[in-house]
């Protein structure tokens, strides 16, 4: 069986990725994992951009540019986030997200 | 006579007190300022009676008007009539006595006196302003120092009391502010008392705004059931704080109820008068009965203040000239009397270190002066002729009786009954504290010092002068009350 992948397949994949990412973001304690979940969410967005660009406006490049921007920002964001995590580890001796709740109340 | 002096002198005194170097200086500066206020208010009284005798029939005398925010029609408008003069005299008496009684405050003396003087500034400003916005401004000035006075220099559960008092009074002033804004917008944008009094405000508006203003001011003067800040606030406040609280700021409410609420909205005053009468009769009797069961001297006086301030509202609610005159007299009388009462309680507490009635006895022997003053103030409270309480209460009774309906009759009789209950609780307190066998640990106590004596004598003099020759106060207040009543009666 050979099925040509259409827009809906891609949207399904990106939707699945997005919710996996959200699930991971909400349930994991480890900050690194949370960061990885965020990457998943970002990538699901990327897939959406690519897919819409290809199937709806094949003669435009906007989706591709946005994807590239997002990848770049994600890289920068990861750098910053990992720096924060390292600092957090230094001060709290843990990268558990629940150990850092000084801002409560 | 420039009314601005009444604001400038306390302001200068307060600033000078802040700039002074040591405690002794602060005391003398404040004392000098307070005496200056006293002299000023007496001069004001004389100038006022002279103007009136000279045939000046204007509603307000010594008016001054400065534009403050022309865009919003806010003016700094000052002026006095007989009622204001009476209140100003009361304030100046209480201030002098309060300053003298606080002579021995050692903790943050400078700030203490600063706040006292600031409070008096607020009271003067309130009584002389004829612009509702400015009036509200001064009302707030008179509230905030109280919070600090109780919170910092108080005793017992002072944080709780300070919070409660400030929140309830702030709640009251919030209602007042809403009411004032209601008047402003329904009257074509005016804050001016005199011009508002000439406009007829729509009855629907009155029906909404009147309760806001009356209850808002009523909180200050302990309207039932919003009186509970009184016992807690008084019992935690320092002596001078209690004196100012009961002697001055409870009067702000009564004055506001009369001058702002009833005067500007006569139709609503008629409509709501029955409710006012019911609430004040309850306050009078219920306050008196609740007092009977109190064991702490300050609580006794605080609850009796609820009862006595009920007379003020009753007089206003009765809507006859005589009753309103009586209400104003009661404000003056109660102000002097209760300030003196708190001063005496403070003196006793300083010596015995207790306020529980049952822990004292026979103080007449060791403190004849303080006990004598205690007798006088107690007798004034229970309405002995020759002292001010009698004059005020009888004027209210006579005025109330002019209303012939059974409802008014019953309310008046209920109010009359309180004179018996008052006698019961006052005599219980006097009998236990001043009379009876002396307690062992109290046999070495000392009588009043010079400043305490002077404070007591000043207030006693006020009480007796009103009690023996009430004519001057009557002549001062009655014409002003008549103007208000004529407006309410629709003449």
């Amino acid at each position, binding site marked *: 069986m050979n099925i040509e992948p259409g827009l809906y397949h891609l949207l399904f994949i990106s939707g699945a990725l997005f919710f996996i990412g*959200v699930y991971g*973001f*909400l*349930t994991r304690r480890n900050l690194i994992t949370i960061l990885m979940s965020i990457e998943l969410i970002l990538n699901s967005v990327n897939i959406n951009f690519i897919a819409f660009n290809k199937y709806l406006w094949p003669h435009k490049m906007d989706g591709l540019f946005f994807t590239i921007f997002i990848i770049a920002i994600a890289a920068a964001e990861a750098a910053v986030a990992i720096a924060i995590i390292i600092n957090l580890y230094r001060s709290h001796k843990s990268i558990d*997200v*629940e150990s*850092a*709740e*000084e*801002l*409560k*109340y | 006579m420039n009314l601005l002096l009444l604001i400038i002198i306390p302001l200068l005194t307060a600033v000078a007190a802040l700039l002074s170097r040591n405690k002794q200086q602060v005391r003398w500066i404040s004392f000098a300022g307070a005496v200056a206020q006293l002299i000023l208010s007496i001069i004001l009284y004389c100038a006022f009676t002279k103007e009136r005798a000279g045939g000046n029939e204007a509603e307000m005398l010594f008016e001054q008007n400065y534009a403050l925010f022309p865009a919003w029609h806010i003016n700094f408008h000052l002026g006095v009539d007989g009622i204001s003069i009476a209140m100003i005299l009361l304030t100046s008496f209480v201030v002098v006595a309060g300053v003298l009684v606080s002579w021995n405050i050692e903790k943050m003396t400078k700030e203490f006196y600063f706040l006292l003087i600031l409070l008096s500034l607020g009271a003067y400003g309130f009584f002389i302003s004829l612009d509702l916005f400015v009036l509200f401004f001064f009302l707030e000035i008179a509230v905030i120092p109280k919070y600090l006075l109780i919170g910092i220099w108080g005793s017992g559960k002072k944080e709780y009391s300070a*919070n*409660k008092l400030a929140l309830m009074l702030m709640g009251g002033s919030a209602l007042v502010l809403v009411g004032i804004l209601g008047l402003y917008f329904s009257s074509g944008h005016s804050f001016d008392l005199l011009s508002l009094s000439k406009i007829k405000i729509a009855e629907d508006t009155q029906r909404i705004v009147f309760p806001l203003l009356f209850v808002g001011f009523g909180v200050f003067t302990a309207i039932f*059931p919003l*009186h*509970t*800040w009184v016992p*807690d606030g008084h019992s935690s406040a320092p002596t001078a704080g209690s004196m100012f609280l009961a002697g001055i700021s409870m009067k702000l409410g009564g004055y506001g109820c009369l001058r702002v609420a009833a005067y500007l909205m006569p139709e609503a005053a008629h409509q709501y008068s029955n409710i006012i009468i019911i609430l004040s009769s309850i306050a009078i009797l*219920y306050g008196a*009965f*609740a007092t*009977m*069961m109190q064991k702490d001297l300050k609580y006794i006086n605080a609850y009796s203040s609820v009862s006595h301030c009920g007379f003020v509202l009753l007089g206003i609610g009765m809507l006859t*000239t*005589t009753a309103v005159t009586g209400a104003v007299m009661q404000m003056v009388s109660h102000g002097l009397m209760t300030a003196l009462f708190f001063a005496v309680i403070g003196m006793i507490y300083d010596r015995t270190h207790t306020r529980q009635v049952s822990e004292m006895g*026979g103080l*007449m022997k060791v403190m*004849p002066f303080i006990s004598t003053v205690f007798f006088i103030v107690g*007798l004034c409270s229970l*309405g*002995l*002729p*020759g002292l001010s309480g*009698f*004059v005020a209460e*009888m*004027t209210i*009774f*006579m005025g109330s*009786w*002019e209303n*012939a309906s059974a409802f008014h009759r019953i309310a*008046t009789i209920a109010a*009359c*009954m309180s*004179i*018996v209950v008052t*006698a*019961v609780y006052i005599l*219980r307190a006097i*009998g236990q504290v*001043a*009379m*009876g*066998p*002396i307690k062992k640990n109290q046999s070495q106590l000392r009588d009043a010092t010079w400043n305490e004596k002077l404070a007591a004598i000043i207030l006693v003099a006020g009480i007796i002068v009103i009690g023996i020759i*009430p*004519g001057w106060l*009557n002549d001062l207040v009655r014409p002003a009350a008549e103007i208000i009543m004529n407006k309410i009666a629709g003449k």
Partner: protein
Amino acid sequence: MPNATLIALIPLLPLAGFLLLGLFGRKYFKKSSGIIGTILLLASTVLALYTAYEYFFVYGKVAGSYQEIIAFNYTWLEFSKGVSIDMGILLDPISVMMLVVVTFVSLMVHIYSLGYMKGEERFPTYYSFLALFTFSMLGLVISSNLFQIYIFWELVGVSSFLLIGYYYNKPSAVAACKKAFIVTRFADLGFLIGILILSYSSGTLDFNTMIDTLTSSGSTQAKAAASTFLGASALTWGAALVFIGGAGKSAMFPLHIWLPDAMEGPTPVSALIHAATMVVAGVFLVARLFPVFSITTPGVLEIVGWVGAVSAIIAAIIACTQTDIKRVLAYSTMSQIGFMMFALGVSGYGGEAGLGYTASMFHLFTHAMFKALLFLGAGAVIHYVHSNDMRDMGGLRKFMPITHITFLIACLAIAGIPPFAGFFSKEEILLAAYHNNTAIYYIALFTSGLTAFYMFRLYFSIFWNKTPSPPGEGRGEAHHSEGGFSMMMPLIVLAIGAIAAGFIPFGHFVTSDGTRLESHFDLQFSILPVALGLAGIFLAMWLYLKQNERPGKLTASVYGFYKTAYNKFYIDEIYLFITKKILFNLIGRPAAWFDRNVVDGMINFTGNTTAKVSEGIKKVQSGKVQSYAIYFLLGVIGLAVLFIYAWK
């Protein structure tokens, strides 16, 4: 015409004494205060006597009847047109008579106290209080205005309070003075409401105008009478309430409970305030408003009569059982005031019908003499024995001859034995009662027999009965004599008064309408009361002349009744029940509880609820990134739903 300044000085001199001694006595007049007070009062007395002479014999009488003269009037506090509290001087026969009585008895008490209170620590205070009382009482009797009388009414109340509580470190004295003040205050509540009603009905507070308005059958009265409450007209209520005030001050049943306890004060004070002057203020008040009572509200006058009669007999019965000599005298005072009250109650207005009025005032006058004498005599005895209890006394006639004789005279006077003063006044009262109300007449007759009995029980117990222990053995050491000149002189003067006062032709001077009333004595009528009086005396003699078993047996035979009477018919207990249980526990305590828990509870509840809600809300700020993410997510979903479905 009267000289207002001189008359005004009568009350003002004691006032000056009060201020002088009250303010500076402790410092400057430690020793001399008694003399100062007495001299001031002597001047007052002379002025009062002069005024009385002038009024009765020079200017008072116009066209055969004594006028009511306003000698002075000052508007003290004006309420509205016509209604004002005035300070004035009203001269009429009763006020002038009272001026004399008050100043005279007060002077005697002042002199007496010089000896009796000597060496007291608060000697100047005592004299200043006495002066205050005298001032207030004089102000009361010359009042021209109903509110003026109320003002002085309260002032005499408070001076009575101060003097009863003179020994302020004695708990019983403190309790007594509080009780006296509160009970009379309760009665004053009635008085006050009565004043309000009467002033509203008549449109004035001035006595003369008020009486004219209320007694003339004009439109005002008709209007006032038309407004009724519980079936009685407003005026009836007004008069009845005013009478309640009078009944409280005059210790009429059931408001009498304060009077016996008031004996905790120094004895001269009891003589002045609680026997001769203040307690008759109620009688004076009814007499002052007599035309209103008599013409407008005769129903109330009948109540006055019955209250007086019931008080007279109850007090007399209780007096027979008491052993504290001052209490016996207190109950006897109450009984005698009952006589005055019902004499007014059975009287009519004007002419022959007004005999009761004259008799009442006459009795007031004579009673002031002999009752003050009795109290001062009792004071001398107490001073000598250092006890109030008659069981500690006996056989004192040998050691206190002057006291003995004067006391005997007073006892004979109060028992109504001719030719002493009490005989004449009591005869007139009985005569008035006989003609108007037979039931009251028989009660009065019986009571006057009882009076003779209990007074002579007292007399024999003090001066005869036991053989005394000679002085020097324990108690009498400091007192070899019965007191100095200052104590004996008033006794003698008052004894002369008690003998002579009866011969004054009172009906010539004091009558209900000012016209002359001839008193005519009917010998046959007098036989019965005098015989009853003598019987009482002989009974007392038989029981108490010598120590014997008879009194014990007698009380044992009627033990139940005796005990009830000894406990004053448990009226005190009933009051105690009402105040403690009902007033305090059923009203006061719940009110205080309600305030702390319900009213304040509501305020606190508002505060606490606000705090609790914010306590709950702040949990949202958990510090957990992931919960914030959930809120964010939920918010996005919520907004999405909103925009897609709800936002049309």
